[in-house]
């Protein structure tokens, strides 16, 4: 069961009523490291960053209460708007594209087909390496002016351009990188496909349903919980991507802020400019964006995700 399904489950079961708990001491003892971490490394810092979001703080002087200043500043900050635009473009183009490709390939890799394990491995490899600096370095060369892509295009007599150095195309190279790592959701789709009972297809073909029809009436509906799960996770993950944009643009988010991911701008504000108050405010904006999109996703899921239990 996935995280998403588990949360749904918790919501359904509700409170168990008051009763004695047999293993209070042992339970809290085993949970001690986690509890310390929850309060010390997660909840307390969250509260602290919420407070800092309303202050002016540069690490040297103590935080100074600034009220809504950071928020009004955000409203007028053009680079911030640009970074939101860049991030949304990346997420809303990259994630659906990646999921569509991963689903299509998973469908091609039919169960029991010859060479399945081999293809699965090859397609999975890029998503294992994709978030590394090494691959970002490679991407920068491949899509550079004299890079691999332009050499290949040159063989066909097409004159390429510097894809990462042009503001019009730099973000697209990162989206391509994201799609290239489709192996991870693909593996999850494959596992989901395997859970669809064979007899559904048998029954459908006895009734004379075409493969095409079977796809839309059996496969897709039964796969919707997995599609939903992948969508939620990939969306949350894609909003937080950082490394590729940093390496490809040398940490600037350039050219002309075209790869300025929200997280990259946050890093620049907080850890280059040491404007911790503003960066904290930005972090909360990110949380709110992700939380509301996830909530919308859950709400929409009622209309298209089929749970048979």
């Amino acid at each position: 069961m996935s995280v998403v399904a588990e949360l749904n489950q918790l919501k359904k079961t509700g409170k168990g009523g008051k009763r004695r708990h047999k293993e209070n001491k042992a339970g809290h003892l085993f949970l001690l490291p986690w509890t310390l971490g929850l309060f010390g490394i997660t909840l307390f810092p969250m509260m602290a960053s919420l407070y800092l979001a309303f202050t002016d703080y540069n690490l040297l002087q103590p935080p100074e209460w600034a009220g809504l200043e950071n928020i009004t500043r955000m409203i007028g900050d053009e680079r911030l708007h640009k970074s939101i635009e860049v991030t949304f473009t990346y997420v809303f183009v990259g994630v659906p594209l990646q999921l569509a490709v991963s689903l299509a390939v998973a469908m091609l890799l039919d169960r029991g087909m010859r060479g399945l394990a081999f293809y699965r491995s090859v397609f999975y490899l890029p998503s294992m390496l994709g978030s590394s600096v090494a691959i970002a370095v490679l991407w920068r060369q491949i899509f550079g002016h004299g890079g691999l892509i332009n050499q290949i295009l040159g063989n066909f007599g097409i004159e390429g351009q510097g894809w990462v150095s042009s503001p019009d195309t730099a973000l697209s190279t990162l989206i391509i990188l994201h799609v290239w790592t489709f192996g991870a959701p693909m593996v999850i789709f494959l596992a989901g496909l395997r859970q669809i009972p064979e007899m559904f297809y048998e029954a459908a073909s006895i009734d004379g349903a075409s493969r095409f029809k079977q796809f839309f009436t059996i496969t897709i509906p039964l796969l919707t919980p997995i599609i939903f799960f992948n969508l939620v996770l990939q969306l949350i993950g894609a909003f937080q991507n950082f490394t590729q944009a940093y390496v490809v643009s040398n940490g600037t988010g350039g050219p002309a802020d075209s790869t300025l991911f929200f997280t990259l701008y946050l890093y620049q504000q907080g850890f280059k400019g040491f404007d911790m108050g503003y960066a904290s405010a930005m972090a909360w904006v990110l949380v709110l964006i992700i939380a509301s999109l996830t909530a919308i996703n859950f709400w929409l899921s009622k209309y298209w995700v089929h749970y048979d239990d």
Partner: protein
Amino acid sequence: MTDSLQTTSAPSGGARRREEDMSANTAALAQSTGAGEDRSPMKSTTAAGRATRSIIKHVLLVVASLGMIYPLLWMLVSSLRPDELIFRESGLLLTSLEFGNYVEGWNALSHPFSHFLWNSAVVVFGSILANLISCSMAAYAFARLDFRFKKPMFALMLLTIMLPVHVVIIPQYILFSNLGWVNTFLPLIVPKILATDAFFVFLMVQFIRGIPKDLDEAARIDGAGHIRIFIQVILPLMVPALATTAIFTFMWTWNDFFSQLIFLTSPDVYTVPLALQSFLDSTGESNWGAMFAMSIVSILPLFLIFLFGQRFLIKGMATTGIK
């Protein structure tokens, strides 16, 4: 078929997993008897038509696979080429082997590259050890024990999986820098000792739930306490989940750039990703050969894990759905 092997190695992981095992096995069975082919026999499909379709599919898949790994192969080949060829050769044919790039890249920074590999290894293995201990303890509590506030704590744990790190990283930075921990590996390892990688807690909870409770009961009747049950009964049975955790921790920590960039600023404590980045910074784009060589070195450990630990990766993802 590797799948059926790996599924049987896990001790019957709950109803759902068992169901999955069964479908994997029936799929394997269907394949071996040749019955899998006619899952959806279209009325018009002839044997020849099926064969053509299968060939087309394989050609398509082979071409796609090649396209997917071409950049990686090309990087490997280019790292063994003289620099000037990198901008001319888009093919994979090597006329001679040049290890000069490796020698040059290895010594390009203030420390030999082995220094950064060692630093990364310390962070990675510290993180793995921390995750294995703290996450399995928490998972045992959530999966087996009955205590106050269990439900809200469990819900919180699930929510922290989805929490963006950015909302805690600034206060964490302030905290750790006040403790004098910046430019040490502590900010990267201590949170893991405190089980902040909640994802693995979740993964292990799932796994422990699939271990029959009779085993705990039997041990309890023999007079074992929770600590003994945990160490002697549960831990040995959850080795597959521990392996999955170790491998994912390796992968994520080895690739992690954001938190290492923040907490490690002095070249003495640079890890591999930081070393690569600073190499790129210092040489600009003038030395791709050496850059590629060190990039290959940096992904080599990941590739080894890919070769030998893949079944744990795939299993972990299939049952819990992670990147």
